[in-house]
């Protein structure tokens, strides 16, 4: 019976320096899977590598041998001595390995709970493995179950609901104010990673024109080019307020850049269309008094952090429900996995045959009332002998090593051919 084994390290067990050394790019993954063929103890293998984790999922006849091989593989391919990562590695097998992969794909094991990228990354890794033919019956089934579980958790729980990053939280707020962000005009004041990320999100949500203001005009032009926007001079900001709907500010200025009195007259000439200020700067750029004005809304970094904290709490609550779904899926998978053993399959096969024979005999004897009990018994006897003869060769084949070491494949085919899993 093959064992499912998972060996890996992630952001909780290994520092970034180590993860960098062991990470595989997409091409490296494909090449590495080729070399797995040099390790006969490993039957099937899939290699996941993201910035937060490197994991090898495999099936093996002899798991301790396979674990040693996997470690050797890592250290030879990445040229890192095994003792360097020995302490950071975790090993799961059987149900625990199954549970682990389910949890990883559903983003229950991620640094940011509920983040959506991980499922795509696992799908890509699985695709590479199928291309290289290193994944077989068991891992195919396991991965399909994994995708199913991850999808179910995403739709049935709120684990991915509500933003947990500053820039996303700002976008969500924008939607609550404007309904749609389509055709909304954006003004970016200053520069900075978070502010620029927010602008990128807005562009992805089909925001219209992007204006960029900066103390140094050259810098404004440079950033504006990146977003295909328009650079404006710092003095033009007040005029620009009539045009734009969303203002993202992130400068190093010690004073407020937009004060309440700047807004005088602006709202009237905007015909009171709402204005949304996102102030990511510390110290703040936008006068908080502006929030008091009708139809203008100001959120500073602390407000946004508050929003995120609430959302994270919600996700944690949802994670409990997600764990239950994982538990359920692990049990289901185990049932299928155990049925892949030779003996249960042969028993199922025989039962299926006997059931068919039984019901056919009953149908026939029903219209043959003249037969004596002895005759009936003879018919039963003959049928049993018939079943035995028919099943003799398949049973022998499955039990012996005639499957060329690919027993699970033949067992799976047998179960499918005779529809034993209903």
């Amino acid at each position, binding site marked *: 019976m093959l064992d499912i084994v998972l060996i890996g390290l992630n952001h909780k067990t290994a520092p970034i320096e180590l993860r960098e050394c062991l990470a595989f790019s997409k091409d490296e993954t494909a090449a590495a899977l080729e070399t797995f063929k040099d390790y006969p103890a490993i039957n099937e293998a899939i290699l996941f590598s993201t910035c937060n984790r490197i994991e090898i999922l495999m099936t093996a006849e002899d798991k301790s041998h396979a674990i040693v091989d996997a470690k050797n593989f890592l250290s030879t391919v990445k040229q890192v001595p095994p003792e360097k990562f020995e302490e950071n590695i975790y090993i799961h097998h059987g149900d625990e390995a199954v549970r682990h992969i389910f949890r990883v794909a559903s983003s229950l094991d991620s640094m940011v709970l509920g983040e959506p990228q991980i499922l795509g990354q696992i799908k890509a890794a699985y695709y590479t493995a199928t291309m290289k033919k290193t994944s077989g019956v068991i891992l195919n089934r396991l991965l399909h179950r994994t995708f199913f579980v991850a999808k179910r958790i995403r739709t049935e729980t709120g684990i991915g609901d509500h933003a947990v990053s500053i820039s996303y939280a700002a976008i969500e*707020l924008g*939607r*609550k*104010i*404007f*309904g*749609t962000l389509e055709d909304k005009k954006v003004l970016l004041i200053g520069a900075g990673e978070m502010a620029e990320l927010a602008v990128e999100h807005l562009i992805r949500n089909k925001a219209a024109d992007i204006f960029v203001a900066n103390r140094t005009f050259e810098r404004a032009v440079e950033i504006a080019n990146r977003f295909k926007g328009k650079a404006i001079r710092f003095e033009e900001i007040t005029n620009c307020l009539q045009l734009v709907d969303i203002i993202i500010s992130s400068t190093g200025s010690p004073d407020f850049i937009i004060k309440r009195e700047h807004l005088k007259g602006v709202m*009237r000439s*905007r*015909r*009171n*269309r*709402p204005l949304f200020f996102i102030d990511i700067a510390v110290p703040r750029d936008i006068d908080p008094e502006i*929030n008091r004005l*009708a*139809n203008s*809304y100001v*959120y500073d970094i602390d*407000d946004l952090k*508050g*929003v995120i904290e*609430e959302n994270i709490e919600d996700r944690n609550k949802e994670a409990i429900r997600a764990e239950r779904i994982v538990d359920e899926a692990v049990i289901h998978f185990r049932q299928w996995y155990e049925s892949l053993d030779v003996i249960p399959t042969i028993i199922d096969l025989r039962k299926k045959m006997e059931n068919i024979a039984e019901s056919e005999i009953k149908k026939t004897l029903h219209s043959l009332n003249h037969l004596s009990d002895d005759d009936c018994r003879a018919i039963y006897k003959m049928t049993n002998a018939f079943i035995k003869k028919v099943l003799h060769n398949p049973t022998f084949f499955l039990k012996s090593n005639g499957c060329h070491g690919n027993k699970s494949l033949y067992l799976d085919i047998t179960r499918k051919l005779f529809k034993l899993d209903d």
Partner: protein
Amino acid sequence: MKILINITILFYALSTAGYIFYLFFQKNFLHKIGFYLLATGFLFHTSFIGYRFIQIGYMPFYSLHETLLIAGWAIACVFLAFQYKFHLKILGVYAAPLAALITTTAYFLPKEPAQAQKVFKSFWLIFHVIVIFMGDASFALACGLGILYLLQENAIKNKNHGFFFRRLPSLDLLDTTGYACIVAGFTMLTLGLVTGFVYAKTIWGRFWGWDPKEVWSGITWLLYAALLHERLAVGWRGRKSAIMSIIGFAVLLFTFLGVNFFLQGHHGVFTQW
């Protein structure tokens, strides 16, 4: 045929329950159930009013019982129409209980209709009443939307992202839908007033008679006219517009009920007990 009104109330109550469950659990099928229940209730309601019309030979709106029945019917009708157009699911939480409440109140009021007078059988009068009720129902929805707007704006301004923030739609949608309700209501009210004048001319030989109901209807009309004018001229929107639609509806309620109870006039007969 009294059974029809019982069935109507039952469906409105079930629809209310559906929408309240929707408010808490946020499952899409719940608001769909609420919507279809309300639509079914509305059909029964319509057939009840139609039946009464055939039975007594004129539109049944000559006692408080009957006018409230029509008011509940108009709210259900206008809500269904707006829901169909704007898909503002959460509004049912306001409209369904309102329709249920008004219809139930009507159910418990005395039911003897007023003596049919000749004046009741004019086409202008029927048109006048139906249009006015539709207009009033639109203003009732606008008031509800104004309340929802204030709740949502308060949540956003005070950074209090609790129960309502998650459940209410965007400020923009609440505002534009409220505006659409007011435009629709104002159009109906204007039509209703004009047909009222025509009717008054044919019966009493004058368009305007300084009857308290007429005066208060005029005030209501001016109030909504001012709101629309400000919106078109200087872009009044959001909070101010929401507050105005709530005040407007309060005045409207007084015109509808208060005038009849506290002041004398020729509309008094329609709300007699």
